[in-house]
């Protein structure tokens, strides 16, 4: 109403000028293009969320393989150098380092890995880092702005912005949980055929030619028995495998992984338009979903609210419009769990 009142005091001539300019204004959007700097993730928007960029500067890490290859981000959780990152992105990588603020730290030690969340706790030699400030809750309305790590330079961390875009929920493992072995029927039990190198059965020491007889002491005679056994299991569960090698009974503990993550899943049409996505992007107990753009190398860093508080940790780029983050509640529990695996000083 205030607007109406002020308008009345305008002279006729100025009205006509406004009239003409408003017509031009309406007419003018034909073929116009919004300059990149004004776009949702342009530099001017990033400048608006500078306080969150400051948090990323101090409390996120860029994980490097060798001198120049950025492979992941990290979330700093203690002043003395504990950093969380995405386990599957640093697995089997050598010569790792973490760039924090303007300094680079060699990353010597992986303290512990959580296979369920695909999170690794790593350590650098430092004494005065700034742990990320945690939010009280991840219970945030859909449509709320959030910020994550964008492209980094040597001395500067940049933000990327987006919104919480769907209901916080479990992401079931693509294809369900598996031991990570190809089984064929044999007279004495189930014969192991191929074992992919990245399967947890492989790291547990199982080999081609072993014969599986029991899972958690339940007899396994047919492949259907294994399928039935898996029905009530989830990714990350530990299973005791009893097997025969050269006629001798042995046991091994295998952590279940997702079928798609272990054996690979055929790329879909949606994958084709999604760019590089995370190798491990399913099988999480609960995630926040947001629409911040990224790729396989942009996970591991904190997800912040506009106040710069950590509401979660980015854990998977699922596709062109879905990114997942571990909610802060689960993240805090996970930190405690992983820290407990740290050897006593």
């Amino acid at each position, binding site marked *: 109403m205030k607007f109406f009142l002020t308008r009345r005091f305008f002279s006729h001539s100025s009205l006509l000028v406004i009239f003409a300019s408003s017509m031009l204004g309406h007419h003018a959007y034909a073929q116009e293009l919004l300059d990149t700097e004004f776009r*949702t993730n342009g530099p001017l928007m990033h400048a608006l969320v500078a306080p969150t960029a400051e948090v990323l500067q101090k409390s996120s890490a860029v994980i490097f393989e060798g001198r120049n290859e950025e492979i992941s981000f990290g979330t700093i959780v203690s002043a003395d150098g504990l950093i969380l990152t995405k386990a599957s992105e640093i697995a089997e990588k050598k010569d790792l380092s973490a760039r924090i603020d303007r300094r680079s730290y060699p990353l010597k030690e992986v303290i512990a890995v959580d296979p369920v969340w695909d999170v690794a706790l790593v350590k650098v030699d430092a004494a005065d880092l700034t742990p990320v400030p945690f939010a009280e809750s991840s219970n945030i309305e859909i449509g709320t702005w959030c910020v994550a790590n964008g492209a980094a330079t040597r001395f500067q961390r940049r933000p990327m912005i987006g919104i919480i875009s769907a209901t916080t929920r479990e992401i079931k493992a693509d294809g369900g949980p598996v031991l990570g072995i190809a089984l064929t029927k044999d007279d004495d039990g189930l014969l192991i055929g191929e074992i992919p190198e990245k399967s947890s059965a492989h790291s547990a020491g199982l080999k081609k030619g072993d014969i599986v007889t029991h899972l958690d002491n339940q007899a396994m005679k047919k492949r259907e028995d294994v399928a039935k056994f898996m029905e009530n299991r989830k990714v990350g569960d530990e299973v005791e495998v009893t097997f025969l090698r050269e006629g001798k009974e042995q046991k091994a503990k295998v952590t279940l992984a997702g079928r798609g993550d272990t054996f690979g899943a055929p790329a879909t049409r949606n994958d084709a338009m999604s760019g590089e996505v995370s190798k491990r992007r399913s099988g999480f107990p609960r995630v926040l979903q947001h629409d911040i753009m990224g790729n396989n190398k942009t996970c591991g860093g904190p997800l912040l609210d506009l106040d710069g508080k950590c509401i979660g940790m980015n854990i998977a780029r699922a596709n*062109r419009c879905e990114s997942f983050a571990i909610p802060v509640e689960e993240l805090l529990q996970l930190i405690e769990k992983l820290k407990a695996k740290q050897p006593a000083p």
Partner: protein
Amino acid sequence: MAALSKCPAKPSITATRPTAFSHYLPFLHASGFWISRFPFLQNGIVVVESALGMKQLFVLFGFAMISAYAAEMERFAFNDKKIPSGVEDLKAIQKSMQSVLEKVRAATVCVELGQGSGSGVIISEDGLILTAAHVTSGVGKEVTFVLSDGRRVKGESLGLSSDSDCAMAKITEKGPFPFVEVDKEDQSRLGDWVFSLGHSGGYNKDRGVGVRIGRIVKSTESTVQTDCSLIGGDSGGPLFDMHGRLIGIHSRVGPTITENMHVPTREFVLHWDKMLKGEFLGEGPFAKKPKKGTGFLGCGSEDREGKLVVTKIGRESPAEAAGIKVDDILIKLDGTEIKDKKHFQAMLAEKCADDKVTVVLLRAEKEISLTIKLAER
């Protein structure tokens, strides 16, 4: 802008890929559009015709201006800034979106047709739906809609514009359904903050309808481009302004994540009545016109003493479903008297799969009229 690819969830509903996009024309409004966009111009004309004095003219003109600005007032302040002024503006954007989000998510449906799925949005209480032509792919097709709460309802596709990727459909079950308001006045501008909804990759009850935020980064006559990311399954889903008014329908994506193309509602407004009537408009590339002669009725007949008599009914054919029986005498097809078998076949050869035909037949000296949807030959 080369190498555009459309984004259905599965290839089965993919229309031919447009090789060259012919719609990037200079912006030209039909005159009707101008009038509807500038209601105060109509006022101006009325004033001149009634030959009032200059003073009244200006007074009326002033009122017209005020009414024009009343519409302008509705615009959010953050939309008239090249960049939000600060975190307060960001929060205003968030607040406006969140105040309408629940309502518009409820009206966003998953469109299941054949092997694939897309999205759509309900725009009336009785279940009229706007979606993309490459999702419905034709007129009169049976469709299942999954409402956001998981309820599955039956429906059918109405008309479409195959060269601009507009389509209408309707729920054939009884409402009321949640629905959104359509911006028929074309009020969005370059740089406006917008958000997209859709059932990305298909319906997922735990996730719900996915929301993405962005700005209008390009606008041409028949395409709006935003930096709200889209993926297969979103096709046909809604793009909203921050008032929750429908301003576009998702159509296709470019090679980078920030290139997401929507059909503006002004394009739907242009074809509204014809689509509502079930017309197939344009020559593609977003939907292929069904070929004549592909319609299948499924009843055999022969000429007997100047009458065309049914001799055979195909199993599970449209003829069987409609209740045509052996020995029925075929009299009329779509209002035209049937002369003989040759004539009947010639008329049917003009029909396509999914066409509806009206057959009048004589049984026990009583005329029976049946409306039958042809199957695919």
